[in-house]
């Protein structure tokens, strides 16, 4: 802090710290607290009271309909409609006088009332996200290694540029591209049809989109960079002489990687895994677009439904928090496995 003041002066330092604070509070802490609070209560009403509230809601709907009709009405119809509206309003006022407002009850019920099916989807999502992470790791490790150690600087730059260019395109478009490739009458099936292996007329196409693998492929493609770059960054700092030394001492390629490259790149591998896992576990667009309901839901889709289809923000917030907790547990697990601390990751 003192060095900041010394470098930038009081004014700028206050500005930096203030902005950082606003960012922390406004975009991270407060929304999370709000969600946490939401997830910890629900509304309760006795059955009769609920029926009453429902009746009031229905009456309001009817009133709006009648008002709509009245605007189009002419002649004596107008007076007729106005009379009906007044009657309804009177009924509403009467009912509202005895209405019992729902009570807000605090507790952990939102967290424990997940149905068996939802819990299964939750477990499956975590498992799939791990699988995506593993796949991305397997795909990216050789790429990162080649770019960092084997390729000439010019080729490495080209390789990395090739990896970055697709990211200039919107994520949704990238996912749609996979949709076109994997669709029932998509690129692959068309090719198979051309080979005479499938027949569109008889609908004997391969239903790629119905397999979880389709979502995996699209996700690996969507998040590959988040795996490659942290790994590339650590591998690039590996002294090439270490590789030659290992080889000179008789180590096979496998042993050189296991004993020299991987231990060195561990922080990068951990960061790549964490990022890919978080992104895929929380990804909404990829499973939504790719499976379009033909495959099983991911947990992120369930959360979306709780919020915007059931309008049950309380359960939705609880689901979201459960996913967040699972991700945090995963982070610590990976850090433990890789034997790296927060400091290594921050690097």
């Amino acid at each position, binding site marked *: 802090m003192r060095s900041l003041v010394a470098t930038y002066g009081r004014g700028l330092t206050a500005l930096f710290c203030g902005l950082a604070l606003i960012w922390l509070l406004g975009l991270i802490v407060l929304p999370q607290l709000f969600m946490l609070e939401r997830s910890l209560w629900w509304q309760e009403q006795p059955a009769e009271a609920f029926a009453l509230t429902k009746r009031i809601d229905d009456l309001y709907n009817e009133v709006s309909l009648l008002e709509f009709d009245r605007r189009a009405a002419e002649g004596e119809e107008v007076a007729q409609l106005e009379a009906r509206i007044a009657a309804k309003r009177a009924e509403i006022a009467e009912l509202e006088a005895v209405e019992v407002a729902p009570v807000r009850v605090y507790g952990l019920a939102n967290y424990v009332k997940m149905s068996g099916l939802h819990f299964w989807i939750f477990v499956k999502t975590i498992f799939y996200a791990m699988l995506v992470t593993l796949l991305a790791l397997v795909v990216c490790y050789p790429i990162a290694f080649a770019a960092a150690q084997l390729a000439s600087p010019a080729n490495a730059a080209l390789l990395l540029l090739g990896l970055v260019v697709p990211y200039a395109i919107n994520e949704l478009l990238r996912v749609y591209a996979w949709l076109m490739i994997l669709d029932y009458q998509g690129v692959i099936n068309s090719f198979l049809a051309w080979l005479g292996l499938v027949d569109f007329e008889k609908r004997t196409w391969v239903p790629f989109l119905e397999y979880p693998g389709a979502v995996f492929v699209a996700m690996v493609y969507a998040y590959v960079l988040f795996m490659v770059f942290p790994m590339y960054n650590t591998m690039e700092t590996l*002294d090439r*002489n*270490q590789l*030659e*030394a*290992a*080889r*000179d*001492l*008789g*180590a*096979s390629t496998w*042993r050189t990687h296991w*004993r*020299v490259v991987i*231990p*060195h790149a561990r922080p990068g591998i951990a960061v790549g895994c964490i990022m890919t896992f978080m992104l895929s576990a929380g990804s909404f667009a990829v499973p939504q677009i790719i499976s379009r309901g033909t495959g099983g839901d991911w947990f992120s889709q369930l959360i979306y439904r709780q919020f915007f289809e059931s309008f049950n923000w309380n359960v939705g917030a609880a689901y979201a928090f459960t996913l967040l907790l699972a991700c945090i547990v995963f982070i610590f697990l990976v850090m433990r496995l890789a034997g790296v601390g927060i400091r290594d990751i921050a690097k």
Partner: protein
Amino acid sequence: MRGQNVELVDVAMRFGAFTAVHPTDLVVEAGEFFSILGPSGCGKTTILRMVSGFLEPSQGEIRIGGTPMRGIPPNRRPTALIFQNLALFPLMPVWENVAFGLEARGVDKPTRRARAEELLRLVALEGQGHKRPSELSGGQRQRVAIARALAVEPAVLLLDEPLSALDLKLRQHMRTELRAIQRRVGITFIYITHDQGEALTMSDRIAVMSQGRVEQVDTPDRLYAAPATAFVATFVGENNLVRGRITRAENGLALADTPLGPLRAANPHGLAAGAEAMLFVRPERLQLGPANGIDNRLAGTIARRALEGPYLHLAVATAAGTELLVHATNRGGLDAWQVGAPVEVGFAAEEAMALPTGPLAADA
């Protein structure tokens, strides 16, 4: 462990249009401490990498212990390489570093551990096996690298300027150490260096390289006393150079016409009269003061002087404008040798040497 000889038969290395090593024949005897000495970019590291297997020569054949090495990868050659920056594995404890080669050969852990401890004793690092390389000093890390290379029982140890990162004191100490280790294990050492002091003090034989060519292969004594080319004469040790033309050549001696007047010198290459020549004479072979019966005598004044305790270094400016370096032993009477004082300098014909003109070390 037993050393094996290394033979280079017509070996050359080209990278595109650039020739790093011109066709070279070289034999390193089994159990020899052999240095390859030359300025940076002379091709010495290329030779080392070809012997270790990281580079395949563009032409010619490398044999180790008589076995041709073409197509054999580094991990299957009877060589071990010590890198300039040592390339120890920083995340492994010292003993695992030392035992890495054994691990790669599938030796079980207790045996590896015991062998590592043995090797650490050989390099005087007993009981340091559990430390990380970063916890050791520069000299200790050096010895770990040597132990690690020796663990695979190589017939030939290749060293790529491993002392260059150390400070002077430690470097001088490690020279003796390296030499002692080599005597103890008896294997062939090929040592790459640009430091002539290192090469002269440690080696049985030295190959001096310049611009991809081996200029001379000889013992340190012979290399210093009888350099074969102008490059070697100027690269190994200090030398005074006088350019001239041979006017007479007989009985292994030559008389040359030089800006300093006619000078006599040994003529090992048998240069004929009329040939351009470079005359070399070592600063410590020049005698100060008047002396009778000496072949070559020159007069000048002392331009600079530096007293180094037992030695006195003088720069003598001659009438022709050439400066001669003189290293004299301090025998007292220093007052006579002050800057500006006139001196006479002389040397016997055998002390100087007429060599064909050629590139000098300063040009490389």
